[in-house]
């Protein structure tokens, strides 16, 4: 059984603001990216445009028990549920299955710094570390940090009692989340799913992880496909959640359909020179012939090598209008692919194209692609 899968809810929040319209306008070319080059210098980031959290997370106690990446994700998930018209539909929310692509929690940077400073001066570091951690870690910190607690918080705040799964593994977690959600609906294993991811770029612990591998761009902003002077990732705070639904179910309830999600494909190339290009060409090619006016939205990271290979793969669609998600909202790791699919759906929903292809090669591993159509 292979059923059509449609997108009936789009929740987007980023440095550009929130909602379909703000992002569709940026896709149409009328908005310049928001980049902060000072706060985390020398690393530029796209900072989140502040959200009115109360609109999606009414209880302050809920807001307090989350970290920024979780609040952002819960907020965007709420936008998607609102857009799909199921926010107050208890029966649907008891069936709604959730897949979240998530990273991990944020360190308490001040505590880490103080402990590391102190550790250098003590003879017996073990007991010192124990004492400081017992005293300085907030008990609830752990909960705010667990990867699966974004899904948990989405459940608690929005009253979803269907099951959730959390995928980890950087960019590819986002690809596999969308791919799995699509496959489950297409095969009849599920009727309706909420899928997405969330990333807070405004944290030095994640910059540190990426910079250990030398993956970050330093200095000023440059477009993703024009960073030859200093290749690297510019991260951005962003979240996207999509409500995916079987076409039958969406039609039966008269839902507004933003786009049809035709195919989602993933691969794991060996990352030898040329492998990413060949893999992405293969994924795009597997979708069959495309119309000349297809829009290509790339979740390319900006990292050296793989970004050039992704650009080369996209030349297999010579007439496509090419947009790099990173040029609009920055690179959002686990959320990069869901954000890119959401942007594609927004473009189709706004009538900017009839067909869209989304690609993304993770900064270290994993390649993915999706194919969408105007509803």
């Amino acid at each position, binding site marked *: 059984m292979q059923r059509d899968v449609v997108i009936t809810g789009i929740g987007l929040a980023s440095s550009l603001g929130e909602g379909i319209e703000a992002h569709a306008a940026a896709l149409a070319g009328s908005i310049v990216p928001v980049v902060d080059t000072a706060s985390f210098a020398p690393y530029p980031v796209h900072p989140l445009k502040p959200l009115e959290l109360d609109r999606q997370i009414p209880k302050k106690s809920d807001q307090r028990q989350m970290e920024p990446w979780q609040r952002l994700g819960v907020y965007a998930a709420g936008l998607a549920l609102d857009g799909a018209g199921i926010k107050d539909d208890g029966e649907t929310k008891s069936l709604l299955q959730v897949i979240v692509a998530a990273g991990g929690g944020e360190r308490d940077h001040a505590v880490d710094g103080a402990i590391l400073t102190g550790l250098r001066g003590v003879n017996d570091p073990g007991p010192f570390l124990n004492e400081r951690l017992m005293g300085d870690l907030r008990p609830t910190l752990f909960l705010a940090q667990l990867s699966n607690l974004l899904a948990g918080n989405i459940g608690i705040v929005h009253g979803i009692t269907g099951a959730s799964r959390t995928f980890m593994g950087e960019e590819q977690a986002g690809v596999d989340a969308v791919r799995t959600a699509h496959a489950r609906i297409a095969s009849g294993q599920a009727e309706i799913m909420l899928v997405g991811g969330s990333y807070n770029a405004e944290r030095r*612990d994640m910059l540190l992880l990426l910079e250990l591998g030398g993956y970050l761009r330093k200095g000023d902003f440059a477009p993703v496909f024009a960073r030859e002077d200093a290749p690297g990732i510019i991260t951005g705070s962003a979240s996207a959640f999509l409500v995916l639904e079987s076409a039958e179910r969406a039609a039966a309830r008269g839902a507004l359909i933003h786009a049809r999600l035709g195919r989602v494909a993933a691969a794991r190339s060996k990352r030898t020179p040329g492998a990413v290009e060949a893999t992405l060409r293969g994924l795009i090619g597997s979708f069959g012939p495309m119309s000349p006016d297809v829009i290509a939205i790339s979740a390319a990271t900006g990292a050296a090598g793989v970004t050039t290979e992704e650009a080369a793969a996209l030349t297999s669609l010579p007439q496509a209008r090419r947009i790099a998600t990173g040029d609009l909202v920055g690179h959002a790791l686990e959320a990069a692919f869901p954000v890119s699919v959401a942007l594609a759906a927004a473009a189709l929903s706004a009538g900017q194209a009839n067909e869209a292809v989304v690609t993304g090669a993770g900064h270290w591993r994993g390649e993915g692609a999706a194919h969408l159509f105007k509803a």
Partner: protein
Amino acid sequence: MSNTQHRNTQHRDSKGRPVVAVTGLGIVTSLGQGKDANWEALTAGRSGIHAIDRFPTQGLRTTIGGTVDFLFDRPFCAPELSEKLAMLAAEEAIGQSGLGQPGDFPGELFMAVPPVEMEWPQKQELAASIDGDVDYDGLLREAATLKHKPMHEMFLFGSVADHVADAFGTRGSPISLSTACSSGATAIQMGVEAIRRGDTPAALCIGTDGSIHAEALIRFSLLSALSTQNDPPEAAAKPFSKNRDGFVMGEGAGALVLEDYDHALARGAAILGIVAGCGERGDGFHRTRSSPDGKPAILAMQDALADAGLAPDDVDYINAHGTSTPENDKMEAMSCAVVFGERMARLPMSSNKSMLGHTLTAAGAVEAVISFLTIANGRIPPTINYNTPDPAIALDVVPNVARDATVRTVISNSFGFGGQNTSLVLTAEPART
């Protein structure tokens, strides 16, 4: 049924889907490496929990754990141990299955891995060359020298599964997942779903967790989730007992080779059992506490049975989540009473965690492996340390001593922080019915 008939029949479950067979099992825990070592210890009622000597425990309320200490003779961090545990369990499972060729496993990989982050020794290494007070800007400047490049790959969430995929040559994009303490069960469920969809003829499903280090222990300790009855260590985990006071952290890995039943029969593989049904429910109640009415756990078990096309009366044994926390064990006992009714008084339900501790991310997979060993051997591992029964939850916990029994159908429960509830229905090979 003869082999010839098997080969000519397309087997489908009660819902018309491919049947999901188990053709390989692997396990590593604090009790040892491999099925034989673990089964011998589990049925002897031996505990793998001991005083922690991996790191200093001075000043900590909990100083014990089911750490796996026999794999490295040098310092290591959580992703390294988690990967090693997964590799060993997978090697055993794939070896038993005889599926594919070395380095060429014809199926997808679904892996429950602990969420890890950079650990203190690595941060200290970066901090060592910083003058003055340490802050993250200093750490970033040191990182930018690229002298510590391996740390990037080490602490990516996707790297453990990537390395396992490389080692065994699994197909497609490997999944790294977390549903907290039900992660291992979710990995199995995802393999089942992929085979039922026809996406893959086989799946390697692994749960692994080697993440006991000082900060991980302290975090659970600060949540008051851990037993503090450190002496003697082997008596601390006492699921369903009146004096239970928290769980004990454990380490380990469980690996299962799942395979389309017809695919397994066609190649003449030995069928070790069937993953007949899966159920999962979210709990929008609280971040760490389960709904007091147990509704999500009840629904997860009922969904799993319905998915398997079986009734509560078909279940011979419950492999409990049984963490030894006051709240979980009460909730689980109550939920089982709702699902199984009066039968609960005599339906055996034991907790492997009484001996292994809570292997967290791995638990669902570790306990599924043990459940299949229980079916195969006709012997139920006990709940040890059951000396003070809790009168509020009258159960047959298979107290202290293993019991011979015909076990054809097991329900294995996994419940986690964040409202994750997963139940698996695991059955004997159909030809044995």
